[in-house]
């Protein structure tokens, strides 16, 4: 647990970066600090490992005030990931990742072995071990930064915009991988971002800060979307929050899934026409995994792969209302493909079905 108690930071020039912050990051959870630029997120984060000393107030690490601790020893208990990774340019990747264990007195050999395991864990091939940071892309460096912070297996992690230096696609990947990792390791993490979508996607709980360093609201992502505390939070969370809050609403069997007739590749035009409902027919492979939609009217000869329209995004039956609705809206037939956990077809839903389910249950169970 990391706890802020009335923490204030005024810089020597008089800027009050953080003002009376009270906040608790529970053990094993990912807490996100989010807010507009200059609202004091980085300052708050760096006060935890005392790279910045608070002007007043107390920060506790598992009920122990940090102010009495030796700063260097305190920092060795906390993994720290910074925005541009901050790798050591003169050391190889494996030695970068070994930094903390070696600092804590482990033999270089052992530390390297462990580092190689960790690299694999964050999705870096072992062939990168002997490379230097300049030989890696921004996203890869960011992964090394995360591996380096994890290497000493610290109970706490601080992450300052760890995924901001990369393009949206890589960012999405890193986020997914990080979520999966966190599910395994369950560390007490505080992460800073100014990207509300990232906060809502990753956070177990989200602390929204406003300029002047005050806490505006601390809540779960779905609470932020459904009941923002004030205009500032509502505005910051964004305009389409009604739609986005569906992303936290599990479908939990409340949506009626319709039967869908299917054909396989190689089917004749007549068969496809017979199975089609409206202009479109769903095509699956031998294992009932959806391949795409086809229009029998346009076929001449048998159904081939190039006849497929691939625009639909299948949703998992165990997914959220948002995924289900998106499956329906993205499908050319307007029937969204629903699959089970093995990716096999269960049936299809229409947007109307999904909306009905949403309207029928105003207090749906939330995802987190």
């Amino acid at each position: 647990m990391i706890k802020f108690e009335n923490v204030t930071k005024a810089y020597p020039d008089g800027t009050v970066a953080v003002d009376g912050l009270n906040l608790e990051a529970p053990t094993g959870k990912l807490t996100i600090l989010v807010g507009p630029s200059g609202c004091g997120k980085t300052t708050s984060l760096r006060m935890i490992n005392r790279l910045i000393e608070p002007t007043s107030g107390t920060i506790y690490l598992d009920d122990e005030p940090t102010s009495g601790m030796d700063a260097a020893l305190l920092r060795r208990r906390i993994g720290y990931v910074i925005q541009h990774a901050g790798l050591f340019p003169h050391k190889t990747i494996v030695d970068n990742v070994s930094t903390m264990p070696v600092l804590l007195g482990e033999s270089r050999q052992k530390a390297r072995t462990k580092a190689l395991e960790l690299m694999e864990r964050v999705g870096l091939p072992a062939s990168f071990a002997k490379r230097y940071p300049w030989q890696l892309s921004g996203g890869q460096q960011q992964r090394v930064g995360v591996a380096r912070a994890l290497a000493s297996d610290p109970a706490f992690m601080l992450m300052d915009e760890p995924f901001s230096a990369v393009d949206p696609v890589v960012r999405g990947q890193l986020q997914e991988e990080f979520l999966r990792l966190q599910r395994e390791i369950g560390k007490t993490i505080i992460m800073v971002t100014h990207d509300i979508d990232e906060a809502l996607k990753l956070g177990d709980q989200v602390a929204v800060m406003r300029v002047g360093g005050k806490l505006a609201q601390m809540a779960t992502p779905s609470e932020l979307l459904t009941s923002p505390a004030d205009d500032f939070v509502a505005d910051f969370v964004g305009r389409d929050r009604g739609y986005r809050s569906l992303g936290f609403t599990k479908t939990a069997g409340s949506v009626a899934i319709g039967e869908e007739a299917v054909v396989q590749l190689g089917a004749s035009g007549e068969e496809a026409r017979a199975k089609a409902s409206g202009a479109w027919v769903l095509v699956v492979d031998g294992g009932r995994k959806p391949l795409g939609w086809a229009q029998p009217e346009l076929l001449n000869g048998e159904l081939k792969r190039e006849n497929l329209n691939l625009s639909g995004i299948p949703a998992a039956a165990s997914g959220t209302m948002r995924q289900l609705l998106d499956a329906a809206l993205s499908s050319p037939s307007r029937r969204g493909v629903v699959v089970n956990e093995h990716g096999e077809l269960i049936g299809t839903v229409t947007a109307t079905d999904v909306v009905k389910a949403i309207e029928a249950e105003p207090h749906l169970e939330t995802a987190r």
Partner: protein
Amino acid sequence: MNYLFDPAHWSGADGIPTLIGEHLLYSLIALAIAAVIAVPLGIYIGVTGKGVFMIAGLANALRALPSVGLLILLVLLISPAFPSRMGYILPSLIVLVLLAVPPILTNTYAGVRAVDAAAVDAARGMGFRTMKILTDVQLPCALPLVLSGVRSALLQIISTATIAAYISLGGLGRLLIDGKAQNDYSQMVAGAVLVALLALFFDQLLAFITRRVVSPGLTRRTIKSAPVAEPVKTPVTV
């Protein structure tokens, strides 16, 4: 060139080997003293940001120094206090040290300044103490620039060490001065060539040392490594 190839000049108390030996002795002693002064000072200024004005001011002032003039002034001041040859050696060394300090100082300062602030921040954030940040991060990263400062300092020293001969000390400057006095051009050319060769040799030696001690991560030399490619690990979407 005849002078160089005459075996008579390669032995004896003022033979070429002796002159080279003396030349090197002055040069290396001066370089060592300059490094001992300039490297720690450069580090201190680079790390703390204190005394930055010294870098520009002092370095430029020293660069514009008229070495021969200063040497004679120093001899006049110092030699009365030291009866032996020391009264001449000391002024020569001081001049050489003053020449060597600016390049080493400015490069060390620039090297420390140029160290990636994020790497230093990360080190501190991981619990490195100040000294360890210096020895494990700042110095290794500043090393290429420090060494290039040493390299240009050594070149300056080796070519300037000829002035020791002005005040009747040894070194390769003897060949230049004696050659001039005797109108022996062959001897002067020999002196100039030897100084140039010596400078060239040490320049290459330092270049070699630099390659050995500076991390390839800094010089961006590719060592045998796999092709640089993104490992595509697409996360499974539903």
